[in-house]
């Protein structure tokens, strides 16, 4: 009864073939909501400084975006399932930090030098998995509040990185850890390919696999998902582990590009991550949003930042403008999507 009040149109709609065909097209259109804004920024960027469209600059945008992009991808998975993971930004620093700590020779930095160089990548990923397992245990198994658990983890993991590094930066990373961030394929860093590949996989998984679709069901109505036989606990724990692992991989890519792990690596990145996801149409309440949308969100943010830099905005103003950009981008996506953001 109550639903007829809100949707009076639906009760007596006779089945019409035309409408049926249009619905998925509409869904895809919503996904493309930010594309006009991205094109507009590209035009503005070119007007401000023709260098903007130079291939070296575009590669630069994609490269700087690819690391945070993995955090956005990770957060999108978690948000769609109706949870939040604040600790991603600390995992982003701690995972490569632990690897560096174990591998880098003692001396200039706080390295232990107990493991060979090839262990860098597996160790980084392992730390990511472990953080995800802890998050999963606390949130899914012991039913603690996800927001506060990951907030606690954010602080703990950041503190651990500061502890093992003595607050300093690890240098002299092994070649295996540098590969993703520095090696080029056809003039483009490997990490860019990897970021694109993982986003493509994300789009496929969320759109076209049982596990992916069950994230939407869980985020939309966890009781209904459980009643439908979805193993909600297992899926939620799984998504937290995947997210942490993606964050670790993102951190590895940044460490590779900078050839170092700073104690503050990833510090504060989570705000940009949330902003990109929401601008890209992912709901903070769960069950809504797409990986492609999130991708356009982070791309838009990084393009705007790049344009600002090219326009010669002084460095000390960049952070205030970054905040303002996020707000403007939110407003723009609110207008183009025509939907209230939750």
């Amino acid at each position, binding site marked *: 009864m109550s639903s007829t009040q809100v949707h009076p149109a639906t009760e*007596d709609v006779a089945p019409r073939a035309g409408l049926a065909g249009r619905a998925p097209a509409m869904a895809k259109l919503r996904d493309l909501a930010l594309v006009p804004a991205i094109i507009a920024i590209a035009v503005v960027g070119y007007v401000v400084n023709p260098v903007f469209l130079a291939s070296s600059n575009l590669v630069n945008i994609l490269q700087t975006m690819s690391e945070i992009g993995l955090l956005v991808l990770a957060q999108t998975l978690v948000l769609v399932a109706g949870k939040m993971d604040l600790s991603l930004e600390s995992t982003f620093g701690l995972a490569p930090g632990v690897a560096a700590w174990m591998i880098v020779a003692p001396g200039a930095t706080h390295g232990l030098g107990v493991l060979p160089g090839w262990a860098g990548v597996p160790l980084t990923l392992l730390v990511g998995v472990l953080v995800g397992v802890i998050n999963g245990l606390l949130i899914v198994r012991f039913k603690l509040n996800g927001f506060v658990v990951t907030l606690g983890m954010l602080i703990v993991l950041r503190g651990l990185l500061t502890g093992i590094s003595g607050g300093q930066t690890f240098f002299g990373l092994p070649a295996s850890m540098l590969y993703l961030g520095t090696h080029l394929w056809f003039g483009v860093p490997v990490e860019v390919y990897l970021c694109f590949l993982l986003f493509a996989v994300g789009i496929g998984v969320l759109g076209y696999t049982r596990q992916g679709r069950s994230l939407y069901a869980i985020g939309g109505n966890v009781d209904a998902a459980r*009643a439908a036989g979805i193993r909600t606990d297992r899926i939620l724990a799984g998504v937290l582990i995947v997210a942490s692992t993606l964050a670790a991989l993102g951190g590895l890519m940044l460490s590779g590009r900078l050839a170092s792990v700073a104690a503050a690596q990833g510090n504060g990145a989570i705000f940009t991550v949330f902003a990109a996801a929401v601008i890209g149409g992912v709901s903070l309440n769960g069950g809504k949003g797409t990986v492609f949308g999130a991708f356009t969100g982070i791309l838009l943010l990084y393009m705007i930042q790049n344009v600002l830099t090219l326009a010669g905005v002084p460095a000390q103003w960049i952070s205030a403008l970054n905040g303002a950009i996020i707000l403007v981008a939110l407003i723009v996506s609110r207008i183009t999507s025509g939907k209230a953001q939750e």
Partner: protein
Amino acid sequence: MSQPAQARGGDSPLVEAAGIWKRYGTTIALQDAGIVVRPGRTHALVGRNGAGKSTMVAILTGLQSPDAGTVAFDAVPAPAISDRDAWRSKVACVFQKSTIIPELSVAENLFLNRHALGRGPVISWRSLRREARALLDAWDVEVGADRRAGDLTVEQRQLVEIARALSFETRFIILDEPTAQLDGPAIKRLFARMRALQERGVTFLYISHHLEEIYQVCDEVTVFRDARHIVTGDVADLGPTDVVAAMTGDATALISREPRPPVPSSVPEVLAVDELVVPAAEGGLAEAPPVSFSVRAGEVVGLAGGGGSGKREVAESVVGLRKPRHGTITVDGTRLRPGSVPAALDARVGLLPQDRHQQGFVPGLSISENITMTVPEQLGPHGTVLPSRRDRIARRLIDALAVKTPGPELDVAALSGGNQQKVVMGRALANDPRLLVLIQPTAGVDVRSKETLLSVVDDVRARGSAVLVASDELDDLRTCDRVLVMFQGRVVREFAAGWDDHELIAAMEGIES
């Protein structure tokens, strides 16, 4: 179009809406519809989902303005739509969804935003509580003013909402499906309360899907169909068959079935429940005795009982939504892992849960995704989901259940209640269940949807599967070969088909006979 309502003599209507048109986009929600409620005469408004009842309620409560037509209270034109206080003194509505704020006390809920003030803008909690107690006492509502509103039962919450409405001096109260979440005794108490308030000069407009309730408590009945007013009359003159005919547009008999011969004991059991002890429901029973029963192939067994009888807990244990304390559940000879829905699904158990909003569907996802949620393995190879295959499965179920939708891609939240319930039923049927478990399958759905939903039971039975129907609705139970009545956690009686309504109801309410 603002014709002033004509002044009338002594019998002037308390509320009169006439010539109301309301349009949402291309859909006409009300078409020259009207209703007249006379003082002291409890008035029922009935109609199928989408008939325009909700829109009429929204217009009568001033939440929406009609495109054309007039509303008058006591022959005085209704206040401007922006004047909420004036509306509140004319009419109040107790909606299906509670408007009580759970974290606040009963007293504060009663006087929200009109708290008693002490000095200046400071709230005087003492006088607030005093006023609240006076109000609750004045209307014989036995609820502590200091209690947290969220701890109240549904029944108590409704009484608090009625008391709040009365405190605005209104004597016209709309009850929108008040019995949907109440059990038998609570419904009786509500009706007694309505009659008592009626004697004190309160007039009710009563909206319900349950025709028998209307004949218990209402004096007049108005039927809407397809956005139009169809008929108004005294309940004494309009029988249930007439009302159903007016609602559906053609004469349809109330659901009745020929009793079938009992299923012979040689037929194998599909479901065997043995010595099942379920954890007590919220605020429910301390320790219930074990429950054992079985359902044979091609048999429909009813599990009757009111709220708190334990029928829901037993049914949810069978499908794995609840982990029993001990006892076993066996489907087709396989003992199910306790508390595991996937295990139940593997044994081809289908479930229609009690509350479609809470456990039934995922709003925001399409009909197609909702309806295929139980059969992920059929949607594509190697864990993939192929939208074309999913939509094909969905279309088959949509056709089988006559879900009114332009296509499988529609957001399930955009459907009416009856059609949403059909989607949830489709989800239960998707894996061609050997055992179908239905909990309150027709709660809050219109007559037509009810027939469709219950005819599914016959189809499933005819295919040789077993059905367990946990419900307190007589119409749901009429599909059953036998009915087990539960009361306070134990099975108290068993009825064969062809039972007497009064005896069954008496057993559900714990009356020895």
